[in-house]
């Protein structure tokens, strides 16, 4: 009688997360969700191309109270209004909440959970794939927008703030991704809860005086933005009135804590939760 085949030794969390990353990255990059992401990050690039064409003909692309708005300021406004306030939370929300939800919906979670790997590493690998996927789409889009809007003569003077913007957007994607990965792993209707958090709770807390803003990602992220906050709507004027920025170290510490805590909570939830796949 032959000996039964020895079960392979379970992989460590990091090694398993790497395997899941390899599997998920390409899948995530060429999913239908990426078309949505391409449209969202393509918007600022398209606006920047229009800006550059109009400026190339010598006409001012943007005037405020009759005064021409310089390319550097236009880029700053785009970072605030399009990337920080919209693109980063939206991508974090759509991808983060779907990390586990997609596997549950497609009923493919069983295949991952029957592998000899820690359950938490499934989420970690998928989270890293999300981070790589969104960073590789968002950051080049910021780079293109920057070189299209900022005149070459001002590159030397504004390059430092571009590097800060890139780091900041990377941090934003990481933290929002971790928060929404937890929401996706924990709640049944994660998208609705995520939308309420990103565009309800965060906006409200920023407009209120007091300490509530400390419980938002946006407050800490916005404390690090090197550009002046635009007053483009009544809500942002109110937010500007009560705006209290954290110090750089406090904001970085808060963002780092949120990232670690929510990622750990998400991994723990995935490891402990019994997922029921509806037939």
């Amino acid at each position, binding site marked *: 009688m032959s000996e039964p085949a020895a079960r392979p030794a379970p992989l460590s969390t990091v090694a398993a997360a790497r395997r899941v990353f390899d599997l998920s990255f390409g899948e995530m990059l*060429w999913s239908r969700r990426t078309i949505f992401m391409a449209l969202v990050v393509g918007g600022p690039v398209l606006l920047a191309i229009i800006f550059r064409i109009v400026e190339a003909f010598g006409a001012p692309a943007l005037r405020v109270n009759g005064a021409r708005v310089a390319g550097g300021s236009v880029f700053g406004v785009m970072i605030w209004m399009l990337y920080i306030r919209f693109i980063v939370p939206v991508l974090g929300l759509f991808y983060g909440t779907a990390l586990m939800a997609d596997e549950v919906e497609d009923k493919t979670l069983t295949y991952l959970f029957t592998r000899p790997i820690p359950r938490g590493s499934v989420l970690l690998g998928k989270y890293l794939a999300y981070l790589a996927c969104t960073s590789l789409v968002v950051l080049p889009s910021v780079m293109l927008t920057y070189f299209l809007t900022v005149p070459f003569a001002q590159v030397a003077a504004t390059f430092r703030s571009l590097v800060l913007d890139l780091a900041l957007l990377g941090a934003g994607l990481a933290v929002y991704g971790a928060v929404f990965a937890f929401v996706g792993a924990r709640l049944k209707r994660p998208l609705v809860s995520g939308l309420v958090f990103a565009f309800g709770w965060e906006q409200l807390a920023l407009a209120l005086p007091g300490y509530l803003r400390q419980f938002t990602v946006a407050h800490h992220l916005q404390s690090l933005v090197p550009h*002046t906050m635009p007053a483009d709507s009544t809500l942002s004027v109110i937010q500007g009135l009560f705006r209290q920025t954290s110090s750089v170290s406090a904001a970085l510490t808060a963002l780092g804590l949120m990232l670690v805590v929510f990622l750990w909570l998400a991994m723990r939830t995935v490891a402990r939760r019994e997922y029921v796949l509806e037939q």
Partner: protein
Amino acid sequence: MAAKTRYFVLTAAGILTAGLTTGLVASYMGGLPVALSHQAGPDDLAFVPPDAIAVGYANVQEVMASELRQRLRRMQEANPDSPDRHDFEEKTGVNVERDIDAVVGALLPASGDTGGNPLVLARGRFDQVRIEGLARDHGGEVSDYQGVRMIAHTGDEKTMALGFLAPGVVAVGSIEGVRGAIDAKRSGRNVMSNTEIMRLVGELDGNNAWAVGRFDAMASSTGLPGELQQRMPTLSWFSAAGHLNGGITGTFKAEAKDEEAAKNLRDMMRGVVAMVKLQADGKPEMRAFVDSLQLGGEGKTVAVGFSVPAEMFDALEKMREARRPAEVR
């Protein structure tokens, strides 16, 4: 990793690497090579020496054609006390509205105790023979410097000069200033190589009047009282830009030497703006201007934006009319 995924990753990484490398090179060199970058500011900056303390520009044609200027002109013509605007043309042979397209002004470092050396470069259409003739009639001496024709006139304290630098470009200012302009153009060493000034100029491109300069050097060159200089926060650079059409919109930006000084100045300006708003409560004609005052800036910069609507000039004219004695009216 599938081939298409690999290509995507390589393309995205390539864009990021190319952008970061370009930015790093620009930061290290203080700017990108001229061939790659669009030069900010008017071409006549090539006549301004590299050590200029301040530089300003006005698009005379746009300003003269502006609705605001036309309004002021109508007011001036209606006012019998206003000086005859043909006087200037008779004395100099230049009609500002017709002959000048744009003006670049600069303040150059003083030589000795003479204060700053002013330099004005006007681009337009000039009748050299007529101007020379009028200058001679007023005691001007014609000479030649580096092949450029110059007319010098010695007044009570200073010798002022006028030089025909290039077809359509006239320089007026102190004799040192005009000679400096000729040398700058000839040697290619001009204010365009001054990265600090050009950085500020780049931000203001597109306005029809602007000025940038080193605040500390200007304060001492223009003879600002010593006590006032000491009381002013440690400002290093300033820039001011305006756009004239129906009214005037403008911004004034100053860079302090450190963030603490900038914060103090912002606090002080906030107080001044609040006081102005309180004062304007009883003056509805000032309301639009006062409401347009916006304080901004971050880090080491302090910025104030304003907008003066055309209606405010009407209100001021009415106030002036009301104050004039009845017999004059």
